C-alpha cells in the first residue's frame, strides 16, 4: 500500500525524462521531405560564368555536397573555412547554390575568402532554393551517384557534424554502385 506514494514520483521522473529529451531537440531542424528522393530539377546560370549553366543533371555520377550559401549569410562565413579545408582535401566535390544574392557580392566573397566550390549556381530570386526546401542558409545536401538526396544538414557544417555524420555517410555512398 505504501508503494502508492511512489506513483507521483514515478510520474514526475517520466516527465523529467521527456522534458530532458525535449531540451535536446532542436526545433530549428525541420526534417526534409527530400531524403531518399531525386534532387529537384533545375538549371541555373553559374555565378562566375553567367553564360554557362549548372543544374541537377550535373549532380549525377558522383557523390557530392550541394551547399546553399550567400554572401549576406553570417553562418556561411563561419562555415566557410571548413569547406575550404574539405575542398583542399579533395574528399568530395562541393557544388554551391548561391541563394538570393547579388553576383558582384558573391564573386567578391569568393575572392576574399576563397572558393571551395567547383561551381556555384546563381539563384537570384530563390526559386530553386524554395524547390529544394531551403529555409535557413547555410544548408548542405548530400547527393549520391544517382542524383538522389541522401542527407540534409541545416546550419553550418562543423568538424563534429563532419566526423560523426557526413564523412561516414559519404564513405558509405561512395562505395555504392551507380544505379543501385
Amino acid at each position, binding site marked *: 500500500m505504501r508503494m502508492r506514494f511512489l506513483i507521483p514520483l514515478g510520474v514526475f521522473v517520466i516527465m523529467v525524462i521527456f522534458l530532458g529529451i525535449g531540451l535536446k531537440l532542436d526545433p530549428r531542424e*525541420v526534417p*526534409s521531405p527530400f531524403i531518399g528522393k531525386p534532387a529537384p530539377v533545375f538549371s541555373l546560370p553559374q555565378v562566375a560564368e553567367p553564360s554557362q549553366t549548372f543544374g541537377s543533371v550535373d549532380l549525377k555520377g558522383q557523390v557530392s555536397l550541394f551547399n546553399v550559401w550567400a554572401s549576406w549569410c553570417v553562418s556561411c562565413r563561419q562555415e566557410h573555412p571548413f569547406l575550404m579545408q574539405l575542398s583542399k582535401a579533395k574528399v568530395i566535390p562541393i557544388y554551391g547554390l548561391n541563394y538570393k544574392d547579388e553576383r558582384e557580392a558573391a564573386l567578391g566573397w569568393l575572392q576574399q575568402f576563397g572558393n571551395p566550390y567547383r561551381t556555384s549556381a546563381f539563384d537570384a*530570386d*530563390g526559386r530553386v532554393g524554395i524547390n529544394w526546401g531551403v529555409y535557413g542558409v547555410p544548408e548542405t545536401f548530400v547527393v549520391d551517384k544517382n542524383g538522389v538526396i541522401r542527407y540534409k544538414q541545416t546550419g553550418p557544417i562543423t568538424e563534429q557534424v563532419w566526423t560523426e555524420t557526413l564523412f561516414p555517410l559519404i564513405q558509405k555512398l561512395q562505395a555504392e554502385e551507380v544505379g543501385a
Partner: protein
Amino acid sequence: MNPRAYLSLLAVLSLPLPATEIREFQDPAQQASYESLIKDLRCLVCQNQSLADSDADLAKDLRTEVYNIIQSGKNEEEAVKFLTDRYGDFVLYRPPVKPITYLLWLGPFVALLGGGLFLWRQARRRSVAGVDDELSAEERQRLERLKAKIEG
C-alpha cells in the same frame, strides 16, 4: 483642423496596419482562400509566426508562391501540397492525421479517458469501503491517554 476631422484622422491612423504586402485577387473567393491559407501555414524562419504574420524574406517569397498558385486557378490543396512537398508537414499548423501523429491527435483523449477511469475507480472504492473511521486498539489507548492529560 476641426475636432471631428482630427478624430477621424486619428481613427484611421490607429487602424492595424498589415505587416505584409497587400495582394489583390479578382475573385473574392480566391482572396478568401489565400488569406486563410497564409494564416494556417507556418513560417519556417520565425517558427511561431504564420506566413501571414511573418516579415521574414522567405515568408514573403512563400506568400508569392501561394499567391501565384491560387491566382492561376488552382485550389487550396494544391498550394498546401506545394509547401508540404518542399518543407514537410511542419509548415502546417494543423498536422494531418497519420500514424506518426496519432499520439498527437489521440493523446489528449487517451489522457482524459485514463483520468476519468482513475477518478471513477477511486470514487467507487471509497463509496464501497466507506470512510475508515474505526480506531485500532492502540490508537484508542493513545486517545485515552491524551484525553486524560488534557483534562488533567
